């Protein structure tokens, strides 16, 4: 009987504990906060890896551009600049001296005044750290403080400094007081910006909470979120469930199948817009038979361009016209090659390979489904030409190491990579991917053409003073690359996010891929 009483007491205690613990479970995903109190984003990646604003050059650009600001912001639709920390700027006729007038009423998050000395300190630091995207400042000769609100920047050659100053990486202006504490201080999880949001708390690699900077020069009139949470939700299925249930307001990087499934969901919107991120394939131009232009052209005609857009990207990408994504200055008007197996056969015959008869190793990044599917589609077309194809999925690091093998024969015959600009200029593609390299780095077609090198260099120098001339030069460079069939232009990407229907004014600036300016969004 005593045991029975004990049992009943235990059972009651258990029920009590359980009801307490599970009490709050129902309605688990409902948002309790008021409309614009909180924005929650489920992100494929960790919110921040590198906290140093002069070094960071990876996934953290998403949140860093909300902590920090640049002098200008580029608006590609109008090819103009929005003043951010600079109110306006002028350049000398030779394009070698640029003068920036600074906003007067700005303070960093620690209360330090943002003035010309702080801007000079920041830009010098970004340049001299020689890490991250510091190379964007290579054209800069000297930065001078003219007065409290003005700086002069002199260049070695007339580069497009406005585009550099508007870059989403390594162009942040930071509080000298805080930055003096060094990289180790930043890496502890600290920021020193002027942006609309400041850091409230973070769990490294997992979650970050930003809260509004009350002193923000842009003010808080109108509709803005008070807090923003960015959480790493690595699993695709989890991100989808979170946005479907209304727990997350924004998720990124859902698989195409999920995007299609969510298209008709009344609670969410699949946001797409043009992006300057594209996918480009490279032939190994240093080995036979791919050193033969005719063979490369034949293989360019054999690529199933439309099928890749239709069946692999399922419409979430567009057909590229060349190296530079459509919509950006320097892009070609139309592609040089269409899928045409007859032309491909004719060119192979002309090159001395009427029945194909050669092997081709195609590498692609394992785990990226669209790369795999694209490679498989290409393989089936190449086999129609008698080319024996081996597909090899590899992690990026291993694929890149193979591509950099000292002996060109040891490298792959074809690979594809994704590329997007740091500074929004065609130089980002041409300098990195097609300019001759002494040691292999990102020119993974190993193509070397002195004439092309000269055009690329001339175009870069012209971009600061004569945009029209630079555009023409880049188009000429693009035409050479296309004609030489160094590359297959696989897709022009689209910026894709899945967002809660109530989220308004959501957009991604194509010049800033993977970056969101949360200050602009609100809920209704």
């Amino acid at each position, binding site marked *: 009987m005593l045991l029975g009483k004990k049992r009943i007491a235990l059972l009651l205690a258990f029920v009590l504990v359980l009801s307490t613990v599970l009490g709050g479970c129902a309605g688990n995903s409902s948002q309790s906060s008021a409309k614009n109190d909180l924005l929650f984003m489920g992100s494929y990646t960790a919110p921040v890896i590198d906290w140093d604003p002069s070094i960071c050059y990876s996934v953290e650009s998403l949140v860093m551009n909300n902590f920090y600001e640049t002098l200008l912001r580029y608006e590609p639709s109008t090819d103009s600049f929005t003043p951010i920390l600079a109110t306006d700027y002028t350049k000398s006729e030779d394009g070698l001296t640029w003068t920036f007038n600074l906003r007067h009423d700005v303070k960093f998050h620690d209360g330090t005044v943002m003035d010309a000395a702080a801007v000079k300190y920041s830009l010098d630091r970004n340049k001299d750290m020689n890490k991250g995207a510091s190379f964007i400042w290579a054209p800069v000769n000297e930065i001078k403080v003219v007065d409290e609100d003005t700086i002069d920047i002199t260049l070695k050659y007339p580069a497009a400094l406005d585009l550099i100053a508007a870059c989403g990486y390594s162009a942040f202006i930071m509080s000298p007081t805080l930055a003096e504490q060094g990289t180790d201080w930043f890496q502890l999880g600290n920021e020193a910006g002027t942006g609309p949001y400041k850091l409230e708390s973070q*769990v490294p690699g997992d979650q970050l909470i930003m809260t509004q900077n009350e002193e923000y020069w842009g003010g808080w009139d109108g509709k803005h979120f008070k807090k923003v949470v960015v959480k790493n*939700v690595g699993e695709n299925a989890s991100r989808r469930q979170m946005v479907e249930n209304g727990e997350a307001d924004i998720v990124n990087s859902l698989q195409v199948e999920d995007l299609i499934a969510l298209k008709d969901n009344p609670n969410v919107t699949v946001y797409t817009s043009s992006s300057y991120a594209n996918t480009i394939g490279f032939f190994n131009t240093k080995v036979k038979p791919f050193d033969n232009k005719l063979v490369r052209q034949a293989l360019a005609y054999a690529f199933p361009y439309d099928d890749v857009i239709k069946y692999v990207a399922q419409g979430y990408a567009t057909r590229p016209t060349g190296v530079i994504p459509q919509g950006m200055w320097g892009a070609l008007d139309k592609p040089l090659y269409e899928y045409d197996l007859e032309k491909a056969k004719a060119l192979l015959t002309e090159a001395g390979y009427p029945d194909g008869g050669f092997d081709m190793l195609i590498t692609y990044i394992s785990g990226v489904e669209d790369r795999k599917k694209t490679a498989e589609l290409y393989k089936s077309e190449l086999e129609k030409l008698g080319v024996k194809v081996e597909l090899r999925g590899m992690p990026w690091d291993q694929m890149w190491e193979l591509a950099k093998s000292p002996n060109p024969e040891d490298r792959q015959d074809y690979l594809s990579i994704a590329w997007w600009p740091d500074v929004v200029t065609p130089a980002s593609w041409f300098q990195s991917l097609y300019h001759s390299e002494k040691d292999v780095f990102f020119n993974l077609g190993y193509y070397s053409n002195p004439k092309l090198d000269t055009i690329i260099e001339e175009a870069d120098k012209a971009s600061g003073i004569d945009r029209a001339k630079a555009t023409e030069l880049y188009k000429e460079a693009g035409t050479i690359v296309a004609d030489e069939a160094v590359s297959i232009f696989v897709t022009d990407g689209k910026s894709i996010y899945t967002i809660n229907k109530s989220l308004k004014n959501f957009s991604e600036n194509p010049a800033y891929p993977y970056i969101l300016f949360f200050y602009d969004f609100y809920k209704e």
Partner: protein
Amino acid sequence: MSLIVLMGVVFITFVITRVVPSDPAAKWAGARATPQQVAAARIELGLDKPYPEQFANYVTNLVQGNLGYSLRTRNPVMNDLKVFIPATVELVLMATLLALVIGIPLGIYSAKHKNRIFDHVSRFFSIGAVSLPGFWIALALQLVFYSYLDFLPLGGRVSIETSLMGNIPNITGFLLFDSLITGNLVIFQDAFRHMILPMITIALYPIGLVARMTRSAMLEILGEDYITAERSYGLSERLILWVYALKNSLGPTSTVVTLSIGYTLMSTFLVESIFNWPGIGKYVSNSIIALDYPAIMGVTIFSALCYMALNLIADLIISLDPRVRL
């Protein structure tokens, strides 16, 4: 002996991470670093030195508790481990506790009702529990309890609302414990709710294992002469089962449980990723994908130390049984 095993683990891991075709300097320098930046990073990380020297440096630093810098998080690996280990240990301990609470009674009742319907159902459950892949169970639980029922959270350690409260206690790193001793029941409740699904997923394997081990040990013991003698003295069946028989069956069960903790640690690799649990499993999964070799080596050494400690505990448990003479 343990030291030799540890050195072997360190050496093999070091060799493997150097054999894998990857350039840690390029990773450290950043996605689009210039060749000059990569060369500077190579010197900064000491990768320009010969392999034997690199290994000697690594071991010297290891002895001083320095595991190097993670190429992915840019933090000292030791700091990362300190941040992520408590979440995993808490999850594994709770899952093990659940396994004991469910597995032992299941095994006892199964033995008591040998070859009857309860025993068949229990054995079916036990085999199912050890056979079903953890990632499948995790996804199924998420689908049912989050998507369909909207009853339990999808993942993470606490809800966003709790995070925003900004007063999450961090004394030991064990959130349930910390929230209890600070009297913060709201955080305790939230943390417990977030633990339920990953805990069940991880606990299923040890539940099956404990149930099966308890059953077989109990069956063996229930056939012993002293049990027959106790029955003949008129002792209640409950007392015989739960006190006299269970006490003698706990030795092998404890050994299995101790060793299964090692397996449970490994199973967190996938489960933590799925449940977005900020622990060592998720940390190492991300590190493996990124070929972050200092982090991989750090976690491998931690895992080896755990296995060694668990083996030692298992040996001690066995040695406590007077029937065993080591």
